[in-house]
């Protein structure tokens, strides 16, 4: 029996290879996701370990992972107290800044908008790895005002040499600072900064420039005296620290940061794995179809085995074993391709500023394990259904000429499909009302169920839809007619092939609807909310110096300037983006629609919350809630609830005073500018642009341009998703190739007959192409319909999150259908060629 399995594998290797390709691609996606996130994690672990000393001291929350620029500082006397401790080997006080961007010789920000711009004074501390945190690679450290050192990579990217004058965009006053490059440093063990830039200042100059000339520090690193443990050092240091300041051991600090990093990496991994999952689902369709066809072609042989006394189990096992071999081969190759894919992902992220050029791409045991588990499980499970059908072939079929498989009743499909689809819709509805990851999981599960249900039901739709094709196909005469008939001959197979395409295209269509709706909602929000004439901002909302707003205020013709600051906070226990504004100025810049309360009611100690936040936390006007920021907690009374049409990138709006209490450094992320009614728009704009000209980090836009910029962001995100979905579409196309190829083999005799009675090779090729188009377009139409439904449902569910307008990109969707037709033509290439090349006599003689 094993030998029969093995011989079949060898005899049908090309067919099985196509199935294996589906597994290869799916597993590659899984493996790639693992390898990429491992690589990312490793690269950041190196940075964390390489920058942590024996004990790290700062105000509670100030140097947490993800904390914004903090305003709290320690006086120099703390350094003295620490130096007096016998456990201390050396004290390394430091100031850190988060938004100091190096402007390259070409006038552009190094690394683009994305990677952080770090700045500090060189503290001289030694890291946990035993090496100095920073080593001078060339030149010397800055020792005077207007001197800086840069990390080697940044200097190279910016094209700066020692002695050059470097331009920096800083959060200070004025924002642009020019300094002489005195040295190049290397970070840690030479692992690099993953694309972040590091600028080093002289200690005193930094205090003068950014901390009002006070002799204060944001953080202090300690190296222990000989024989003193981290914990002993920490305990000793903690005793002399002012209240609110905490000392943490290096190990604890590293662990906390790595855990926080792990959460983010986990999110990235999950995100990628979702798309891997989509590819695998599509792959399952392909494998089920391939094995169904192979089993159908071998039904006589399988029946023979049954007459020779093979049990049902033996037949099932022989087919599943074949799948197992395909799964093992596919997983192995997939693992290798996954490694390349991880490198590709690193390249894509490199375009966004995350430079992993120096990172390792480790293939760990869990990666190998999961790749094989997923690959083998998917193949074996997918082959099980066809295998079970194979086992139901009656032995007597070996004696009959038509070796057809027992057909399962369409009615059972109808029932199962409908039940699955309904369950899916239910799960989606539950997901809409649920929150966070549970809601998302339910939503995803619901979509999967609906897709599988639709796939089961699709053979029923195949008939009517395909008959629609017979109309335009009349133009091709009998060739067109034969093509339609052929696709109708086995609606199950046509539908299964189309379903694979349906899955990918449903998601593509859904994302298109989401994207178009997000763009339309942005337009509407900007049109309805914005009453200011200009917006100064950074594309990715990185914060910039408040001096920009201060200077704009002085421009003649400007009547109002409203700053918007933003920070990640915890509100009522859930993480939120919060914004801080001056209510009076803000009211002039935006006409914010409120569901209850007024913008004027926003005072120190109160907050306006978004509709979604109010719903999630059950807040009403007059309730109090707690906002937890890096510097501490603040109790706030809800002064109003924004309506869902309010275009503010925040779950809660507070006053600057609240952010100050939370020790969030004053940095603007958006500045709205109103001009006097009589002032000339172009003149005012030109004056503002003059202020921002030296700062490549920010630009001046009118509302229209502001909306455009946001829509560009949406489109970039959409393109990323399209890219990730592409793999599943590729697998589906392989499925079309495979099905067509197998049906050409099945119909060898018939094709020979057609050729014998005078059909030309051209006509034959055309017939196969037309069939392929039918399948592809049918799949695309199914996908579009489902995608539209998913998209509309999502928009309805997200209406409180600012997605107010449902827009359906009809043109784009029709282009997808046309593209699917083109894909059909491509997919038919090899099967059509094979059919056309068949030797007529041999084809007819084929049994």
């Amino acid at each position, binding site marked *: 029996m094993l030998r029969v399995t093995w011989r079949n594998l060898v005899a049908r290797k090309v067919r099985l290879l196509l199935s294996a390709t589906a597994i290869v691609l799916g597993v590659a996606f899984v493996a790639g996701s693992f390898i990429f996130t491992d690589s990312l994690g490793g690269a950041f672990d190196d940075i964390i370990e390489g920058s942590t000393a024996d004990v790290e001291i700062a105000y509670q929350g100030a140097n947490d992972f993800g904390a914004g620029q903090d305003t709290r500082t320690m006086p120099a006397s703390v350094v003295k107290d620490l130096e007096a401790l016998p456990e201390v080997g050396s004290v390394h006080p430091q100031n850190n800044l988060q938004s100091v961007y190096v402007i390259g010789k070409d006038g552009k920000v190094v690394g683009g908008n994305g990677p952080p711009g770090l700045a500090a004074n060189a503290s001289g501390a030694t890291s946990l790895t035993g090496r100095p945190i920073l080593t001078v690679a060339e030149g010397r450290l800055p020792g005077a005002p207007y001197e800086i050192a840069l990390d080697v990579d940044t200097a190279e990217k910016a094209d700066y040499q020692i002695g050059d004058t470097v331009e920096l965009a800083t959060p200070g006053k004025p924002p642009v600072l020019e300094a002489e490059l005195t040295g190049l440093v290397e970070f840690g063990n030479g692992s690099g900064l993953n694309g972040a830039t590091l600028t080093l200042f002289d200690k005193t100059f930094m205090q003068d420039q950014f901390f009002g000339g006070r002799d204060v520090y944001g953080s202090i690193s300690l190296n222990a005296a000989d024989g003193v443990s981290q914990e002993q050092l920490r305990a000793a240091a903690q005793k002399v620290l002012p209240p609110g300041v905490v000392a943490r051991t290096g190990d604890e600090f590293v662990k906390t940061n790595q855990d926080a990093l792990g959460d983010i990496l986990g999110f990235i991994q999950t995100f990628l794995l979702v798309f891997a999952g989509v590819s695998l689902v599509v792959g399952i369709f392909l494998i089920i179809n391939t094995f169904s066809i192979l089993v159908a072609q071998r039904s006589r042989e399988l029946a023979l085995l049954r007459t020779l006394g093979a049990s049902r189990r033996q037949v099932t096992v022989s087919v599943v074993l074949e799948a197992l071999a395909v799964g093992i081969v596919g997983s192995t190759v997939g693992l290798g391709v996954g490694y390349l894919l991880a490198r590709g992902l690193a390249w894509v992220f490199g375009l966004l500023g995350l430079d992993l050029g120096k990172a390792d791409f480790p293939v760990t045991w869990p990666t190998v394990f999961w790749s094989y588990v997923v690959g083998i499980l998917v193949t074996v499970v997918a082959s099980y259904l066809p295998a079970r059908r194979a086992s139901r072939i009656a*032995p007597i079929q070996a004696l009959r000429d038509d070796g057809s498989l027992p057909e399962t009743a369409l009615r059972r499909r109808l029932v199962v499909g409908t039940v699955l689809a309904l369950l899916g819709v239910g799960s989606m509805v539950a997901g809409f009302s649920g929150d966070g990851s549970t809601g998302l999981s339910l939503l995803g599960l619901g979509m999967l169920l609906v897709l599988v249900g639709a796939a089961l039901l699709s053979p029923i739709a195949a008939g009517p839809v395909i008959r629609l094709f017979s109309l335009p196909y009349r133009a091709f005469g009998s060739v067109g007619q034969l093509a339609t008939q052929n696709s109708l001959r086995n609606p199950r197979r046509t539908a299964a092939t189309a379903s694979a395409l349906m899955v990918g295209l449903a998601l593509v269509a859904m994302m298109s609807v989401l994207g178009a709706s997000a763009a339309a909602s942005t337009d509407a929000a900007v049109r309805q909310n914005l009453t200011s004439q200009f917006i100064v901002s950074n594309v990715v909302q990185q914060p910039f110096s408040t001096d920009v707003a201060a200077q704009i205020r002085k421009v003649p013709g400007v009547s109002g300037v409203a700053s918007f600051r933003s920070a990640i906070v915890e509100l009522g226990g859930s993480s939120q983006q919060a914004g801080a504004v001056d209510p009076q100025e803000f009211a002039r810049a935006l006409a914010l629609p409120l569901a209850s309360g007024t913008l004027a009611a926003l005072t120190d100690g109160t907050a306006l919350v978004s509709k979604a936040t109010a719903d999630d936390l059950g807040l009403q006007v007059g309730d109090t809630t707690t906002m937890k920021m890096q510097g501490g907690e603040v109790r706030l009374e809800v002064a109003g609830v924004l309506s869902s049409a309010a275009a503010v990138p925040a779950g809660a709006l507070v006053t600057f005073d609240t952010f100050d209490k939370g020790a969030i450094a004053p940095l603007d992320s958006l500045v709205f500018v109103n001009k006097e009614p009589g002032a000339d728009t172009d003149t005012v704009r030109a004056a503002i642009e003059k202020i921002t000209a030296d700062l490549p980090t920010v630009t001046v836009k009118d509302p229209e341009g502001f909306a455009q910029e946001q829509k560009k962001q949406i489109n970039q995100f959409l393109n990323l998703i399209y890219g990730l979905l592409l793999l599943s579409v590729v697998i589906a196309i392989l499925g079309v190739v495979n099905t067509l190829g197998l049906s050409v083999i099945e119909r060898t005799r018939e094709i020979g007959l057609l050729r014998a009675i005078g059909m030309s090779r051209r006509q034959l090729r055309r017939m196969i192409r037309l069939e392929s188009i039918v399948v592809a377009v049918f799949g695309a139409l199914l996908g579009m319909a489902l995608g539209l439904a998913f998209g509309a449902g999502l928009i309805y569910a997200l209406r409180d999150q600012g997605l107010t307008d449902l827009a359906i990109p009809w043109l784009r969707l029709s282009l997808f259908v046309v593209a699917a037709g083109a894909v059909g033509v491509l997919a038919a290439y090899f099967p059509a060629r094979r059919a056309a090349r068949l030797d007529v006599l041999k084809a007819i003689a084929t049994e």
Partner: protein
Amino acid sequence: MTRTMSAGPAARVAHLTKTYGTGDARVTALDDISLDLIAGEFTAIMGPSGSGKSTLMHCCAALDTGDSGSVYIGGADLAGMKDKALTALRRDEIGFVFQSFNLVPTLTARENILLPLSIAGRKPDRVWFDSVIATVDLASRLHHKPNELSGGQQQRVAVARALVARPTIVFADEPTGNLDSRSGAEVLGLLRDSVKNHGQTLVMVTHDPVAAAYTDRVVFLADGRVVQELRQPTRELILETMAAMTAGI
């Protein structure tokens, strides 16, 4: 005669009835048929198209089931057997030779012959295997694939496959139908030798009087019933009987 009487039946059919279709399209394939297939004998089942000979064989070979009545193979009643028991029966007690050979195209001749044993998970009996190979005269073709063999050679492989597991009874369904007369004669000789030399019970469905003449006994079927029986038939005797039957209808 004495030998067959002492041996008793290898398979027995008792009051077997089978109909296809319903209403006007109702066809009675087997009509209360009873028959003993005697161990160690070569039996031919003959009859015109639609006489029920194929259905009878399928029912005897556990490939099909009747509506009523019983089929016994080596004393076991097939009626009421589940798929598992039927599978075991086919594997251990029954051998098959098909009109269209039905070899597994991806396996060599040797592998095809050993397939039933491999399915059953049994080791081939070396001596028996060699004697079967010698009988079917295939020693030089054992490592060829079916498509490298002639029709006669393929059918000899199929016969070897049916014999190798030493089944209680071997069924042959028009084994010479796809062969020229010389190859056909070879295969028939082979079948007869296996009965003579090894005491194999063999049942063959055929409509060829020449083929039927190789057997010990010919059972004639018409309309699902046994209408005639010949012992030690000759070609002439068979032709006469057939002519008489046609005239009778």
